[in-house]
């Protein structure tokens, strides 16, 4: 695997300080309470990878706990998250909302899209890339996410003895 989340963080780390200054909200606000940040992170992840008929969604698959653990382990990730949460809170207020988690799904989708479209190296873009990559890493390590993919894994102990034939359609 040529690229990893850690590499994304490393590559963007040099521009992180500048980007935090560029995207930090101009008005001073008290930091988000921890529980509100946790709610925002969960809502963010469920907007990134929402539940569907054949897919439980990122939060139901335990991704928020895993990413929270990574944030607790890695100071750079924690700094990035704090800056991104401040950005998210400011955008929420600008949109007339109180918390990101309380916004309707369509508004949350707009905000994630805005983060994804932000300049390369900016806080929201970096946070978007890092959390999406992390979420995918954890979501697809759970067999509940494989429904509908025509994937009869894990590779062992059965293997794929039908390998020479056309795959069966589900």
């Amino acid at each position: 695997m040529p690229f990893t989340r850690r590499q994304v963080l490393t590559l963007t780390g040099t521009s992180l300080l500048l980007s935090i200054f560029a995207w930090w909200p101009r008005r001073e606000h008290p930091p988000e309470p921890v529980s509100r940040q946790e709610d925002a992170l969960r809502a963010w992840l469920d907007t990134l990878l929402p539940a569907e008929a054949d897919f439980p969604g990122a939060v139901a698959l335990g991704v928020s706990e895993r990413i929270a653990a990574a944030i607790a382990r890695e100071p750079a990730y924690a700094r990035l998250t704090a800056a991104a949460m401040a950005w998210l809170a400011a955008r929420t207020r600008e949109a007339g909302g109180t918390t990101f988690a309380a916004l309707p799904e369509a508004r949350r989708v707009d905000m994630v899209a805005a983060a994804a479209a932000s300049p390369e190296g900016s806080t929201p873009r970096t946070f978007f890339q890092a959390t999406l990559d992390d979420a995918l890493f954890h979501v697809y390590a759970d067999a509940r996410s494989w429904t509908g993919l025509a994937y009869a894994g894990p590779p062992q102990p059965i293997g794929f003895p039908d390998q020479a034939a056309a795959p069966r359609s589900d």
Partner: protein
Amino acid sequence: MHADVLIIGAGAGGAACAWALASRGVRVLVLESGPWYDPVRENRLHLPDWEQHAFPEGKEYQHAYTFAQMQALNPQWAELRSWNHNLGQAAGDTRRALKYQHVRGVGGSTLHFVGEAHRLHPAAMRMASRFGVGADWPMAYDELERFYVEAEHLIGVAGPLHDRHRPRSRGYPLPPHAHSYASQRIGSACARLGMSWSPNPLAILSEPWQGRPGCNYCGQCARGCPRADKGSADVTFIAQAQASGRCTVLARSHVTAIVPGDGDRVDRVSWVDADGAEHSLRPRVLALACGAVQTPRLLLASANAHAPQGLANESGQVGRNFMETLAWASSALHPDALGSHRGVPSDGICWDFNAPDAISGTPGGVRFSVGMAEMDLAGPINYARRVASGWGRAHRAAMRNSFGRVLSVASVGEFLPNDGTYIDLDPHARDAHGLALARIHSRIDEPELRRLVFMAGKCREILQAAGTAKPFEEFGTYDTFNATHVFGTCRMGTDARHSVVNKVCRSHRWRNLFIVDASVFPSSGGGESPSLTIEALAIRTGAHIRDLLAKREL
């Protein structure tokens, strides 16, 4: 602890040499700095999170080493940059030092190899005399042939009936694997382009063999085989050497000193065991088998008054002529569901351009093969991160529409030695025992870049002929050092001024010192995987050592 021969390193070379000696009545002690691989404890292929874990994990399975400054990249070769449609370019303005892919452990890098069991093209052993580049092997293919046969039969290689480029005195012991459904598509594409596509000779059992089961096509050889159907050195050569009762393997035994004597013999080898206890032994015969990075490191770090430039380095050639992996892979989505995560990683191969003169104007051959599993594009996580784009519901839809549809074509080619690619000792970095670390210097020159352009072009052509969309990812070694096959650094030759060992892999200067790994290769070959040639050479050297011992010449 008595042994006639002390071998350092239990990878392909050390294991095959140990078996050759033990099966011929010689007592052998093998020191391996890494651990035994325990598939029951360590293999995760039966768990949903299998893809989250590289193999092998943990520092105990890796040697420490460093990289020297990498070369700047030239816009002239922009078409050779590595990129992914989701993740962008892999490297910046200078070449990226990713990894020397190896495994430290009993079995060595065969623990993670994908089982390719190739013989060298005979002409690739004559690069200097026939093509005016590189160096010749001090032996002909014919001299190695019977040792290839011996290795193939011990391992249980599955291969095709015919190979018009590599004469055989005996067929493969097992029939070839059937091409996977995806490999059949690549084969059809090759046929449309007038290229051949044949079963790749593999050290993976197509049928049960000597108590080991046949393969079940999980495709994850590179993450370690939990079933032992892959012929890694631990379950083949080492297992049979131990069964002889004449081979002892000491894992987690870290060599701390090799001491050249005042005559023409290596005097002493010291090591530290897993409990930290120090040991020392005066070897009657010493065979080094630590690979093309660690073997020169040990030799250079063994300098003393009797070997001031390092052990066996009278020619100054130890560490020189390093040849790394020249590789390319293009990956694209096919419109049909192919189930392309299934099958052995590299079941099909095209040898059409493998001869050193096959590419006009660029001496050195290449080969093309199936690449999905080798590019780690055979599980949901890598599809989610590298294949499917977007986020939210669009990403999930992309997963549904892409999983099992990736085709990858990979190519490996000749790497000619140059004066900027070598191994030396890092003056600023040492291991826990005070030994200087190996430092990798790497430079890719224009002949390799021209070869890479050819390789990339053909990979793209094959994918297009297979009916795929445009590639979503390409990965090559122009902008990234990522070497799985490494060669040279203790070249074998007839002239002691320009080589390190002679044609039986014995030091020109030190009569009880032999080298039995890919560091003795004078040339890399045109994309052949080296393990079978390492094993054949090591068996040949083991047989020679046994004869010398019998004649009391050692």
